[in-house]
């Protein structure tokens, strides 16, 4: 009998894992970088790494279903004659018509309106569907200025000057030819079917001093009525927030790297910008240092999924959060009911992110007339409203357990962190200790 050496188990590299190998092969075959939608998919320190302490002997709770816990928020009261009043501190983030279908935009407006919150246009101008179905509509002022006109500016409820977004701070939008339908082309003043790359910089201002003058112009055009938001990607949240305040913003929107995009390079999404959790405390600190916390309002977005995330963000000092990806999922994005079709596209429900290709089985990120029929704006709007209601109830549940009669009374002292990284980023103690990394010389 011959002796055989025992074989070793085949071992794959942690560095060259299956995804990495597939991407090298894909790049070698096509000669072009990978483009996709959504935000960072890598594991990042996030709200899951924080816990609420709840009530104890020194903090007593409120009765869960009896005592009031306020959820309303007013945004933009610094300079605007007509600030935004929302029933819940969860808004719908900017997503373009073009990237999304008309029915999907309508559904976002319907869901937001049912919930007493705002929705936001995107890099493609304002459509009648979303204006008509959105009680409170924030109009984005973007580098591309697609569809920008003074009439829409005046019929918006607030104006959001977009400097950057979390998925791609420093990058412009991208809409590939297959989604440039006649209607999209007309709204963007572009030839049909071209690959459209939006500018990454505004065409008529650069830097914080110019931004101040640009904000003045927008205020003058709208007679100082509308709140002016400034949205930045999670790049330098302390300085970007401080400069936005200096430039005259009523509201600062900080979008972390988990925040989605319609389409950009995978390498950009995963390697540029900071996680949402890392952006909040510097932004709040900037407002506090300037004596503007709760005067200039702070909205944070990027990876908000449930009421716990909302409560944690508010406890860290933000005034409201914004959701994009989660709202699309509520409408029906990545629903397993379309699994066979996801498989045909070489993916699976939950992983589908080729939003730029316009073949979305769920009918949301498409301009295909047949696919978009799959979104019933009324039913999808109702689902979004249900989801927003659940998030709000969840956040209230936590706030009451912490003894707070308003979501905005949550505070960093209600939180601990499960990891050193999260403790350092959120500026709250590591669970079981009184150690906040980076504070008091340690």
């Amino acid at each position, binding site marked *: 009998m011959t002796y055989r050496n025992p074989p070793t188990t085949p071992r794959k590299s942690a560095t060259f894992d299956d995804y990495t190998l597939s991407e090298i092969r894909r790049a070698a075959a096509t000669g072009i970088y990978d483009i996709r939608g959504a935000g960072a998919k890598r594991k990042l320190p996030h709200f899951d790494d924080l816990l609420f302490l709840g009530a104890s002997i020194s903090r007593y709770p409120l009765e869960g279903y009896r005592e009031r816990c306020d959820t309303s928020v007013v945004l933009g009261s610094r300079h605007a004659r007509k600030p935004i009043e929302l029933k819940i501190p969860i808004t719908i983030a900017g997503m373009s018509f073009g990237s999304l279908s008309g029915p999907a935009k309508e559904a976002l407006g319907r869901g937001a309106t049912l919930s007493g919150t705002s929705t936001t246009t995107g890099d493609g101008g304002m459509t009648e569907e979303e204006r008509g179905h959105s009680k409170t509509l924030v109009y984005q002022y973007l580098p591309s200025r697609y569809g920008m006109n003074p009439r829409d500016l005046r019929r918006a409820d607030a104006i959001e000057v977009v400097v950057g977004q979390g998925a791609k701070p420093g990058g412009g939008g991208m809409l590939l030819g297959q989604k440039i339908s006649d209607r999209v082309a007309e709204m963007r003043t572009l030839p049909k079917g071209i690959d459209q790359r939006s500018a990454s910089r505004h065409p*008529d201002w650069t830097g914080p001093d110019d931004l101040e003058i640009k904000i003045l112009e927008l205020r003058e055009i709208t007679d100082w009525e509308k709140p002016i938001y400034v949205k930045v990607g999670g790049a330098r949240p302390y300085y970007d927030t401080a400069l936005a305040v200096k430039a005259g913003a009523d509201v600062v929107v900080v979008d972390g790297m988990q925040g989605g995009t319609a389409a950009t390079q995978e390498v950009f999404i995963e390697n540029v910008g900071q996680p949402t959790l890392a952006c909040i405390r510097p932004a709040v600190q900037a407002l506090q240092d300037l004596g503007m916390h709760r005067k200039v309002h702070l909205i944070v977005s990027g990876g908000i999924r449930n009421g716990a995330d909302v409560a944690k963000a508010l406890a860290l000092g933000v005034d409201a959060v914004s959701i994009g990806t989660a709202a699309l999922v509520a409408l029906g994005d990545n629903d397993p009911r379309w699994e066979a079709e996801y498989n045909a596209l070489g993916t699976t429900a939950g992983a589908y992110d080729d939003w730029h290709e316009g073949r979305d089985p769920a009918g949301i990120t498409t301009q295909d007339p047949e696919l978009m029929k799959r979104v019933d704006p009324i039913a999808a709007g109702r689902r979004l409203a249900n989801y927003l209601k659940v998030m709000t109830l969840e956040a209230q549940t936590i706030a009451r357990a912490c003894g707070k009669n308003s979501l905005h009374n949550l505070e960093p002292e209600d939180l601990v962190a499960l990891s050193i990284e999260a403790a350092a980023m959120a500026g709250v103690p590591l669970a079981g200790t009184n150690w906040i990394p980076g504070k008091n010389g340690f």
Partner: protein
Amino acid sequence: MPANTMSKAERDQSHARVFDLSQHSLRELNQALHKLTPGSNETAWEVLNPKGSHSVAVGVDQPVSIDVRGSVGYYCAGMNDGAAITVHGSAGPGVGENMMSGSIVIKGDASQYAGATGRGGLLVIEGNASSRCGISMKGIDIVVHGNIGHMSAFMAQSGNLVVLGDAGDALGDSIYEARLFVRGKVESLGADCIAKEMRPEHLELVQGLLDKAGVTGVKASEFKRYGSARKLYNFNIDNADAY
């Protein structure tokens, strides 16, 4: 001059509502202009002492005439929709940005981004324009009597830019369907921008714009046309070096 011998313009001018920015705030001026309704008798306005103010006469949406006596700062006549605005001086950055319709005449020079993202109407600059003139233009017509600076008509989508003088570096970089006509020399062309043939319809177009802009003694045949080669409209890895 007796009223019955005045031209309509002169008559309007004589009844112009005068707004002195040394006496009233910018906000009062713009709000007064925004309150105008169709059929208003206040069809002629004169703005005194602008002294480089930003956002003078922005967002006007009625067909009135506005004469600004002096130089202005950023974004004068921004988003103009129907007014005829004349600046008797020079204009700072972003004059006529995102104009929808109407006309703007700058008697002096214009700074950066003149006519940026403009969608319609006519912008005439009787002096020179600085860099990025007509950046991202989306349907506006721009006529510059003098020269224009670098990166002009960057990502220009639609509309016509007519330059009687010279153009700086990288004219029409990443241009879409806008048409550029330059009478003098072009320092360099940007990515995907090429010289094109002046066909009869272009001669007619340029002549029409010269006439509208009050330019005399210059022939359309003296201009060269530039526009998109359309090679970068759909991404091709073999064109990556062009960016």
